[in-house]
């Protein structure tokens, strides 16, 4: 299943909000008592006009529905911001946004 996400870019800041369970593999299902298998985003890559500005590596310690925001120098209105993500099961997602 594709990783869904929303990306906003503008005023020198890029914000990403994903929809993902981010299970760390340590939590138990309340009903069955069984461990819930690890399922978390491992890699996040952000590029501006094709140039990498951030590569993020995550563990299961990232909260459910992962959020990331950071400031970057030199981003201008109209720049194409691409965010790509991949989780530990091989699911991927990629979203383009135009900086305002």
């Amino acid at each position, binding site marked *: 299943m594709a990783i869904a996400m929303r990306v906003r870019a503008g005023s020198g*800041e890029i914000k990403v909000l994903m929809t993902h369970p981010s299970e760390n593999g*340590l939590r138990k299902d309340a009903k069955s008592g069984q461990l819930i298998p690890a399922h978390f985003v491992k890699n996040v890559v952000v590029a501006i006009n094709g140039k990498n500005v*951030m590569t*993020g*590596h995550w*563990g299961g*310690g990232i909260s459910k529905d992962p959020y*990331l*925001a950071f400031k*970057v120098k030199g981003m201008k209105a109209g720049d194409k911001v691409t965010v790509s993500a991949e989780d530990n099961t091989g699911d991927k997602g990629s979203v383009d946004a135009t900086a305002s």
Partner: protein
Amino acid sequence: MNRHRRTFLQGATSAGLVATAIAAGLLKPGQVLADWNAAGFGATKTADALAAIGGSGAAESKDITIKAPDIAENGAVVPVEVVTTLPNVESIAILGEKNANPLIAQYMLTDFDGTLATRMRMGQTANVRAVVKAGGKVYTAAKEVKVTVGGCGG
């Protein structure tokens, strides 16, 4: 530069090939980290995680501020913001020192402008630590967050 080399050597000793791969990335600042750091993310102690990411012996820095709640009622979602005035930031790592796996995230950065925010799980009251590599050196800062209800299961 010497400290950087030393950190690299310690990391390589304790974490083997993975640390070597990361060190290879460190030698080319601004480039993409080669691989997800299995030794770092799998470490169960902060000291081991720091060694795996080349953060052992990092200098405490007042140029790094961690913005996080003093008390987090819900450990499942703890907002953390790292703000630094250090120039030439190459990477930022975020750790929860008493989490089952302390290493939460690692970011390699180019043209970074001083602020990075994310949300993390915390199992219990502990220091949130940031490790910032800038200009070939490693700096660190920590802030204690009191957790009312842990968010890591167990």
